[in-house]
């Protein structure tokens, strides 16, 4: 019974921490915070804070920037802390499972995004009917079910079935599949960019897409530099066109085809 309650509490902490995304991307899902929070809820904030701090350094460089899949150090810290406190093994043992847990948490987010997409589609359908109240409800439901629900399960099941079961489960997934999921997940942003292209690109403008790509791929210019270059290039073009139109009103219009 105690085990069940502890597992429920752990699930709650892991789920709420992942709601970081909903609560303003406020770092609840960082190891240093989630470890401490788990410690607080399970009655040993000192161990939790120590594990969180240890894992924060491990995962300092891993942050979900952009659209790629990245390891979830926060979930790792939360579940590791729960293991350490429940088994009484202390902070040293607690971090042993951090890396597989972080991978699990990272891949779960791919699943989470697919769940979210189902709600987004429903939300779009309601908005197409001008039903903004239903859209609001769907946004909240999607956020809580997709993110809280999924990560609650990770925390709950992880703690309930224990570290050995978790270790076995992670070990049972071939590394090839894990790597494959990471590679597959990294392809998905392509669809988002393609969607944008279908909205903006036409034949006349298509070279700009390739210019942006070449500047980034060959010259390694950061996105911000590419955008600034494009801004000034388009300014030049607009100025040149203006001069041309003011000149064309006095001279003939025969030669506006030099581009």
């Amino acid at each position: 019974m105690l085990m069940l309650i502890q597992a429920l509490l752990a699930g709650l902490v892991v789920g709420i921490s992942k709601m970081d995304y909903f609560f303003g991307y406020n770092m609840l899902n960082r190891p240093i915070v989630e470890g401490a929070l788990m410690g607080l809820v399970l009655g040993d904030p000192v161990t939790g804070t120590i594990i969180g701090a240890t894992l924060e350094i491990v995962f300092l460089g891993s942050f979900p920037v952009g659209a790629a899949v990245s390891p979830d150090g926060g979930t790792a810290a939360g579940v590791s802390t729960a293991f350490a406190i429940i088994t009484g093994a202390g902070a040293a043992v607690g971090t042993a499972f951090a890396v597989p847990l972080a991978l699990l948490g990272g891949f779960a987010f791919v699943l989470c995004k697919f769940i979210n997409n189902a709600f987004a589609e429903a939300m779009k359908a309601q908005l197409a009917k001008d039903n903004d109240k239903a859209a609001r409800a769907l946004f909240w439901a999607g956020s809580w079910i997709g993110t809280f629900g999924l990560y609650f399960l990770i925390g709950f099941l992880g703690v309930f079935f224990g570290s050995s079961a978790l270790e076995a489960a992670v070990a049972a997934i071939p590394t090839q599949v894990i790597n494959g999921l990471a590679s597959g997940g990294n392809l998905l942003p392509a669809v988002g960019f393609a969607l944008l292209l279908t909205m903006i690109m036409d034949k006349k403008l298509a070279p700009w897409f390739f210019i942006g790509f070449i500047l980034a791929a060959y010259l390694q210019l950061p996105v911000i530099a590419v955008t600034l270059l494009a801004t000034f290039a388009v300014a030049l073009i607009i100025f040149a066109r203006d001069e041309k139109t003011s000149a064309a009103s006095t001279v003939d219009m025969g030669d506006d085809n030099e581009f």
Partner: protein
Amino acid sequence: MTMSSNETTTGKLTDADLRQIYGRYVHLNGMNDYPGQMHAGFTYAMIPALKKIYADNKEKRVEAYTRHMSEYFNVTPYVGGLPLGVVLAMEEQNAQDPDFDTSTITGIKTALMGPLSAIGDTVFHATLRVIATAVVISMASAGNIAGPILFMLIFNIPQLITRWVTLKSGYRMGTKLLEQAESSGIMEKISYAASVIGLAAIGAMTAFNVNLTTALTIPNAAGGDPTMVQALFDTVCPKILPLCLVLLCYWLIGKKKVNVVPLLLGLLIVGVALSMLGIIA
């Protein structure tokens, strides 16, 4: 700067409206998904404003809802107020002007998110987060729970203020710019510029944000080390694989009318399979 300021902006939306949007904009990243990323949160944040802007035009209101729901949006959330504010100003213009080209809104939105994310990720994720960690880490390593609490405060107070400042200044700038644009007829130029900058930004993001490399090798007949195909690509045409993938998706969505969700699932499955076969890394 502060949320209690009562001065009214030149547009239709009052500070009270902007505060309501701010309350929703906090959840911007709440329902992040494939392929739209933050599109649902972005639309969700704007709903009250769009209701006011298009109060007497249901058709345009619904068009704005579905347009934003259909468009990829991704930005460092803390600076997302800027595109949010600018877009709202443009939607106001669209409500008044029957000839307004809504692809301008898409263009501006897209043009802003790349550079803003570059700044936002550097300032918030790479700098402020690391500073906050550095300040509290020794405290936290000793088991002092004041460490994580301080960490949250150091990070979140600036980010919450930045959200408000960017939202308000974005709306103001957008409103001002568009008022002038209407009178001097430069809307067409803004539209053109927005498309150009947006496309260049998508081109650059294709190179940086789609991670696809091949693990294939060509055996060396002389018995030495095999040649890495990716190394050839890197020399001759770097990032060619992400480019081809984006163009393939563009063709499938635009020309073949493939739906997005099957495309995503298909891509994921193909990605896993190719990775397990050792074709992609």
